[in-house]
């Protein structure tokens, strides 16, 4: 391969790992506001609009950004400027760096080359996640210290103590997974999860290590400072470490929280929910035995396109489509319905065209590999988005822990449980004779 191609691919991999968490921020903010509203029987944000299109309130994320950019950026007179300015950058950088080691699809084999679809292909990828993840404490500490004010300092201490405590459970809960899959390479772990247990159950981490999965998810919540462990910045009662921040710097801290969610859900998915695996469809199955997938994908696309077209044709003349939208969705507007009709129409036509093209020119081995990678990427993103939503879902379900309860749960509950899980896993592996 020519060097410039290699460099482009490397840059592309890095860009994808960079863009995924950033792109998910507005989506997660939107979910946070809209889902929480529905959970609490409210309508949620639905006012901001572009050309009368409201998209169910997602425009509010844009409005938030505009607001935060144009707000006055205040540095307190008594702050330590260096640390104060460094803190949000450090927090954001390390949060984004953590995502780099996650594989978002299997190694792509095109034209005799192997392209790992993860930004940073490391043998000890899991340890990288833990190592860089623990750097996230620095952002909080700098913010607390740099503000040079009592409450942020206390908030910083509280937050760093919490993160240090739960890192232990996080690390230990993963050990069981490492023992079972006997590798520390994240892509290998995902690959191993494609096997079937008893012939029908995908050997996902959550199936073979349910206790570890529960501990890991709880610890991940604590690491991302999300409810029920959001004592660091419990909005309603405690003053957080970013008290003195305003404008874009504050926005960076908020965005960091959502990047943390993305990273935590990405890691949860990779370790316990099969990563990029599509259940029962391994890479070998998808790329091998040509004709299997080569026909399935265009057929699926054609069926999908036809279904959408059919529904549009049935609904459009009676204007039932518009009226249904208006009846169901209080915030749907007339031209919004029109807009979605056009979008759906274009999608259907695109799907049909693509399906027809694939049907007429069946893809070769390379094309098959590319389609497989795309499908796996979609699978990964769907899972990550779901778990990102789960974080929000949990937030609006559970009440917050008290600080002593938090520490007691971390040290007396989850840590011994994680250790016991390691021991039990060891014994079981011995008995199974692996």
């Amino acid at each position: 391969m020519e060097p410039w191609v290699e460099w482009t691919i490397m840059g592309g991999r890095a860009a994808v790992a960079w863009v995924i968490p950033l792109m998910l921020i507005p989506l997660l903010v939107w979910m946070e506001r809209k889902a929480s509203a529905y959970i609490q029987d409210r309508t949620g944000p639905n006012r901001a609009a572009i050309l009368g299109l409201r998209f169910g309130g997602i425009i509010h994320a844009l409005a938030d950004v505009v607001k935060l950019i144009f707000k006055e950026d205040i540095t307190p007179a008594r702050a330590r400027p260096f640390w104060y300015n460094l803190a949000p950058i450090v927090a954001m950088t390390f949060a984004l760096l953590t995502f780099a080691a996650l594989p978002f699809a299997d190694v792509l084999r095109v034209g005799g080359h192997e392209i790992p679809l993860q930004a940073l292909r490391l043998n000890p990828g899991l340890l990288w996640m833990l190592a860089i993840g623990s750097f996230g404490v620095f952002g909080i500490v700098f913010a607390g210290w740099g503000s040079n004010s009592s409450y942020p300092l206390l908030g910083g201490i509280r937050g760093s103590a919490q993160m240090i405590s739960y890192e232990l459970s996080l690390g230990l809960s993963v050990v069981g997974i490492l023992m079972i899959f006997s590798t520390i390479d994240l892509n290998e772990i995902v690959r191993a999860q494609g096997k079937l247990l008893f012939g029908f159950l995908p050997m996902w981490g959550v199936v073979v290590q349910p206790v570890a999965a529960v501990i890991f998810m709880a610890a991940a919540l604590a690491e991302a400072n999300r409810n029920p462990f959001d004592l660091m910045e419990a909005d309603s009662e405690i003053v957080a470490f970013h008290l003195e921040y305003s404008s874009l710097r504050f926005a960076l801290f908020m965005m960091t929280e959502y990047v943390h969610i993305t990273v935590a859900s990405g890691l949860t998915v990779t370790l316990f929910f099969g990563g990029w695996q599509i259940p029962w469809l391994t890479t070998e199955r998808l790329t091998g035995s040509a004709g299997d997938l080569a026909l399935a994908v265009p057929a699926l696309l054609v069926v999908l396109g036809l279904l959408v077209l059919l529904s549009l044709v049935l609904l459009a003349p009676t204007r039932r489509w518009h009226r249904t939208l208006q009846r169901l969705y209080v915030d749907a507007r007339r031209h919004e319905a029109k807009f979605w009709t056009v979008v759906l129409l274009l999608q259907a036509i695109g799907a049909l065209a693509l399906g027809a093209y694939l049907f007429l020119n069946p893809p070769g081995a390379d094309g098959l590999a590319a389609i497989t990678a795309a499908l796996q990427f979609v699978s990964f993103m769907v899972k990550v988005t779901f778990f990102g939503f789960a974080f929000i879902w949990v937030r609006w379900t559970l009440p917050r822990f008290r600080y002593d309860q938090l520490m007691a749960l971390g040290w007396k509950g989850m840590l011994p449980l994680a250790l016991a899980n390691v021991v039990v896993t060891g014994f079981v592996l011995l008995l199974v004779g692996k």
Partner: protein
Amino acid sequence: MKVPSPKLTFWERIYVVEIIRGLGVTMGHLLKNLFRQSEMPTVQFPEEIKPVATRHRSRHRLTVREDGTPKCVACMCCPTACPASCIHIIAQEADAPWKEKKPRVFEIDLLRCVFCGFCVEACPEDAIRMDTGEVTIVGTRREDFIVGLDFLLHGEGNAWREGRPEEKPQPGPGEPLLPPSTPEEESGRGPRQVLRPKLPSAWETVREVKP
């Protein structure tokens, strides 16, 4: 005082089962509200206007006699009763021989008003009422909220009463609405701008709300 904590069963103590149950509850709400949005109690305010109760103390208005003149006799009972000192009246000789005075200036500073309704109680002539149903009072300057005689008599918010059978607007159609003097003389200042939010065109659809 010692509050005994409830005894938890084993399944409750390991949290997980209860957490999943709780997640089920919230997801139920989410799905219900996602697919049955019209059943949500939220009122989409500018599009849907929820009528206030008839006894609600809303923005003031001045009532008029059958001949169209204000009932107010400028007796100064309401500014005396007003705890917020928001009513300002200047009296003048009435044009009719059978009544003593009428207000030349009748101003209410709506930003000072606490909507207590004492003025309504104090009025011996049933000349001031707080039944316009107008609760969204909007303006861009402080001066906009000092409303004068003309607005209180014929302001747009008063039109809301037409829906009520027992409260027909007193002057019939075609009859002169204005007292003999011009509005400039009456209030001492120019005509008021209408205190009502201008809705953007995107909010054109107004749903009807059952009261």
